[in-house]
């Protein structure tokens, strides 16, 4: 495996972390969805590159799925939803952007620290990929908890999924079963989310999950 291959993989994985930060930074709904499309694009590029250097053609499928579903279809759908709901103007963040970014940097540092003790036996690529994937995952979680709006939470969740795909493709020779399962789960997840968003909109006229709280169990 030559040096260039590694560098490109590194670049793409790093790029994903950067886009994750952009997601955290973004406080407009439309921008957020677009950013997410970018996130998915980077993932699909990364997966494709892995397919190339690992000579694992089945990974191209994963890359294609990521590109089509997450970079195109879902962002379009989300655009429609936010326009329908009339929440495309701004999104409220619970914590200030600055603090969120600081916390994000802390998380990245943490994931690198966690990955450090992993022996070189597992391979440099793995080590780096895992550190970045873990960062993306944690940043996605951070996004989920620092946003109040259901759509942005869903986006946070999907960025977690992207991180997972990064990790899965980084693991050399991992059987296809994993990719299928990821795609499968995302598919189901989307269906369910769709159902729920529909229901929630139907019943509450909003997807701000704050509105759900009045129905918390036993709060009479």
């Amino acid at each position: 495996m030559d040096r260039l291959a590694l560098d490109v993989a590194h670049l793409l994985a790093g790029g994903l972390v950067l886009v994750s930060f952009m997601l955290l930074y973004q406080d407009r709904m439309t921008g957020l969805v677009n950013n997410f499309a970018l996130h998915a694009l980077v993932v699909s590029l990364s997966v494709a590159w892995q397919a190339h250097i690992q000579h694992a053609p089945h990974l191209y499928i994963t890359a294609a799925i990521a590109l089509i579903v997450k970079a195109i279809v879902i962002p379009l759908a989300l655009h429609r939803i936010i326009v329908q709901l009339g929440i495309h103007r701004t999104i409220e963040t619970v914590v200030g952007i600055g603090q969120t970014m600081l916390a994000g940097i802390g998380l990245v540092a943490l994931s690198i620290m966690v990955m450090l003790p992993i022996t070189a036996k597992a391979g440099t690529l793995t080590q780096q990929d895992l550190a970045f994937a873990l960062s993306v995952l944690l940043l996605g979680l951070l996004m989920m908890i620092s946003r109040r709006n259901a759509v942005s939470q869903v986006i946070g969740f999907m960025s977690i999924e992207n991180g997972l795909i990064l990790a899965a493709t980084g693991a050399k020779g991992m059987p296809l079963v994993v990719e299928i399962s990821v795609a499968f789960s995302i598919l189901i997840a989307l269906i369910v989310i769709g159902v729920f968003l529909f229901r929630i909109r139907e019943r509450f006229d909003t997807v701000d999950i704050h509105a759900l709280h009045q129905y918390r169990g036993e709060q009479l």
Partner: protein
Amino acid sequence: MTDPGNFFVGAVLIIPALSAGLLAALPDDRLTARLNVLAALLTFLAATVLFFERPATGRYLIVDDLNVVFIVLSTFVGFTTSVFSGSYIAHELESGKLTPVYLRFYHAMYQTLMFGMNLALLSNNVGLMWVAIELATLTTVLMVGIYRTPAALEAAWKYFLLGSVGIALALFGTILVYLAAHSVVGEGLDAMAWNVLVKRAPEFDPALLNLAFLFLLLGYGTKVGLVPLHAWLPDAHAEGPTPISAVLSGLLLNVALFAVLRFKSIMSANPGAFAPGPLMVSLGLLSVVFAAFMLYRRHDIKRMFGYSSIEHMGIVTFAFGMGGPLANFAGLLHMTLHSLTKSAIFYCVGHISQVKGTQHMPDIRGLTVSHPALGWGLVFGVAAIAGLPPMGLFMTEFLIVTTTFARHPLLAIVLGLALLVAFGALLLRLNGLAFGDPDGGRAPAKASFAPVVAHFALVLVAGIWLPPALMAWFQHVAGLLR
């Protein structure tokens, strides 16, 4: 497929899968309920055969000592719950809470759930198991929200979001396990197969394993309902149909814990990896203590028993975390008996809330007067779940507390006091529910008591006498788990 074991393993998986499709297609509600029972019964019978006819380990499926009893237990509770579900759902139709369309959906989902759980238990592949647990989770999400009341949707949405995060974490852990394995075992399916992983575990990179276990514990721990990952559990139990609460508490939590156990045995086999014990002990103890106090302010009967499930899953996790042959044995037995007891309690609770028309406990009083069978069933169930003899959970709690006290006195005292606090809450509610002047609906219960009686009889017998064969199996597995 000449091996008869393979045939029955296939049956355990295919019967639910096929009947799920069939039930989705059939419109008649009477027939579907019966078919549901029939399918569950056949699955159970096929699973029982696995006790005797064990197939060779395949690439995707495995039947070994650890999972065979879980399979039988799972299909058994699945069967009894389907019987209970028949009478429960009939009442829901009568009262108009569910429409026939939703009923078809319900039955199809029920069998899908069974399929998912059986697959998770039987799979010989960490990835496949992950997919199966996923499937089971998603079906239960849909079933929890089936009443479409705001509270039900809220509960389902919460379950879905928290569950998905748990799924993600578990997947990350699974990938890490593969990464740890593939440099030793080589790439491909073998690096995800249980039998290979356990065998080669000592050679894995311990740092990767540590990280993997952390994610797996948090990921599957969410499904187990360990505090602080538990938030979905009480509401999902409270708002879904009661058969689903029974299956959730009785089976799905077990399946998730089963997954944790599988990974724990890999961890323990690796000398360089950190001991998973302290982590499980802390999470378990935290769950027990937290749930014990949460029980006090509950008004919804199903939510209360949901918290009780958190408590008991905490106990089991605690026991496995303590390790050692006695504690592991107690943990396994506790899991089994808790499934039986808790699902039977939910059967009672389901009928109670139907005859009384409410789940709000202050509105339910004097059950032993107005509905003696249901009332005394509840009394028996609470006594059993509280670990009072002659029921089986006494034995397990006895073993857990005594063995812990000899090693870590402080932990045992905390655990014991938490159990006492929890018992205080349960008994307080039981006093109101079962005794005093009766209140609320007095209509006779159109209940099927057979599942309740069957479960309680098993729990009672287990408390007094364990068959030597079962005993030997439990001890063998307890030894495997270290």
